[in-house]
């Protein structure tokens, strides 16, 4: 009952919806960066929406199935092949024992989600199968998958071959990508002009973009409201006494390159933050490649809550298909 890894891709990890409850000890919730895509893939193959699947970034893995399985690939646009024959994305695919799943080059987005009927059945660690490689926790032996691994798969449930999620229900970042941000946290540390510039400028995703955080470049540096640095904060004006970091919070070390913390966030540190990406837009970040032009859009909590409702409604529409 296994999937054989012939080639692992770039950094392919087992992910589910994460392990909340341990951030106060520096263990992040983790889980799929693009949660909606993982949920959709799971529903297509008859799994609970939170079952563990594979998250592959930029390059897909090469996998051999040792038994018949229903498989679905969602998320980024990456041509899918079973034994060399191209297959549709966002669709339940019946794969036979001995067949091999491969991928061509990425065409859009950044991360694919591969769900298999029964889910990837690695042991849970602190209530989740998600891989947290920094802490060697969860997933397959606490690390990204490697050639030769055999991934255990759980008991399959009923699913319908060929079932598909319509284009209109798939969510992708625009061009430029727009991320909605609630200003706050240490927003008062930057000048009014810097605050305006941050939302006016076009930024680009930097190459340093992973599950821990996404760095951005290209906007004007932020200048600070002068102050005598508080005791214990450190000498740079962007330093604070080490505090917690919210998921989605935007820190700007030295005032130059904003970093948005994502699912594998460090839980705290000594850089000030100017606001937080709203929960409804976190999935989008998981689909942004380096160099993606990005605008930050200032919103209030009311708008954030409405966007969250809209996202839940979209998931509701997807669930209604099943």
């Amino acid at each position: 009952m296994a999937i054989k890894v012939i080639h692992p891709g770039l950094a392919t990890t087992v992910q589910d919806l994460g392990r909340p409850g341990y951030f106060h000890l520096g263990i992040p919730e983790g889980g799929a960066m693009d949660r909606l895509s993982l949920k959709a893939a799971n529903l297509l193959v008859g799994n609970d929406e939170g079952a563990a699947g594979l998250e592959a970034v930029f390059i897909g893995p090469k996998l051999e199935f040792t038994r018949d399985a229903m498989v679905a690939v969602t998320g980024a646009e990456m041509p899918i092949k079973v034994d060399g024959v191209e297959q549709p994305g966002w669709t339940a695919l019946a794969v036979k024992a001995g067949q091999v799943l491969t991928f061509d080059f990425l065409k859009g987005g950044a991360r694919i989600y591969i769900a298999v009927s029964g889910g990837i059945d690695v042991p849970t660690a602190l209530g989740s199968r998600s891989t947290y490689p920094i802490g060697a926790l969860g997933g397959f032996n606490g690390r990204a998958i490697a050639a030769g691994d055999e991934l255990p798969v759980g008991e399959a449930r009923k699913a319908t071959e060929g079932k598909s999620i319509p284009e209109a229900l798939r969510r992708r970042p625009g061009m430029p990508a727009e991320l909605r941000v609630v200003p706050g946290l240490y927003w008062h540390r930057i000048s009014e002009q810097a605050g305006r510039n941050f939302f006016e400028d076009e930024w680009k995703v930097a190459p340093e973009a992973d599950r821990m955080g996404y760095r951005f470049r290209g906007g004007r540096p932020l200048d600070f409201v002068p102050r005598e640095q508080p005791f214990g904060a450190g000498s740079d004006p962007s330093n604070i006494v080490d505090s917690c970091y919210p998921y989605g919070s935007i820190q700007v070390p030295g005032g130059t390159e904003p970093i948005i913390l994502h699912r594998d966030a460090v839980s705290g540190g000594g850089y000030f933050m100017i606001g937080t990406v709203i929960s409804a837009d976190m999935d989008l970040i998981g689909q942004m490649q380096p160099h993606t032009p990005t605008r930050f859009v200032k919103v209030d909590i009311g708008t954030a809550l409405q966007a969250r409702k809209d996202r839940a409604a979209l998931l509701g529409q997807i669930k209604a298909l099943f």
Partner: protein
Amino acid sequence: MPMRYSFGGDEHLFVECSEDMSLEAFFNSLSMTTGIKEAGIKGVTEICPANASFQIKFDPDVIHPDDVLSEVKAIEAAATKAEPVITTRIVEIPVFYNDPWTHETLMRFRERHQDPTGTDLDYAARINNYASVDEFIRAHSGSPWFVSMVGFVSGLPFMYQMVERKRQIQVPKYLRPRTDTPRLTVGHGGCFGCIYSVRGAGGYQMFGITPMPIYDPTQQTSYLKDFMVFFRPGDIVKFKPVDRDGYDQAVEDVDKGRFAPPIREVRFDLREFQNDIDGYNAKLEGVLNGH
């Protein structure tokens, strides 16, 4: 100074107890987070205390952010009046100062350091006005440290030195962070000490290494069988310098499952501590040594 409240998007409430680090600020953070835990506010999913601030995460589908805010604010008055007394643990952690592994690493990243000609210990001793590295190590291991935050990654403790502010060791972080730090490095940045729980990137100055694992996801280590993370906010740490033989012996003991760090339960009263810091620390050390 009143607490400062700010939302971190639609899922977090961030509360700064003080801009400056102090044990009073930490105790305010601790009594607030304890109060919030006890209040059992519906929809609150994570409560994370930090050095002089804290953060709570909530599910906005269950509770409106404004309601989280008002419930937390309602706790402030009582929490700030709470007695600054906790029952906690004091633990002795062996440290091999000036060890070959952090030395190799600091030499490898020397161009990222303020003082490329010396070591991190030379630099820290000099800018903190100690006559020698030995004297600096005596100061570092001479007083206890308060674990004022657990986090960054995988159970890493931030530790605040329990001496008057003017005696506290302060060092800047590396000019540019290293891409590598040995696991269990004892480091220091700003006014905070830390122990790197896992190998990885880091910007703190490196003083030594402990043989005592503080994070074990496999939970094989004898004292980490119940939970994979050793530290909790509020723990008190006393470093004990060991030499190479002591270090090697402890590593062997850890591997054989017989390493047992000395841990004692202790009551800590912030007011009594501040009335006589050295005297109080001597008492704490007495508890650790079983008298």
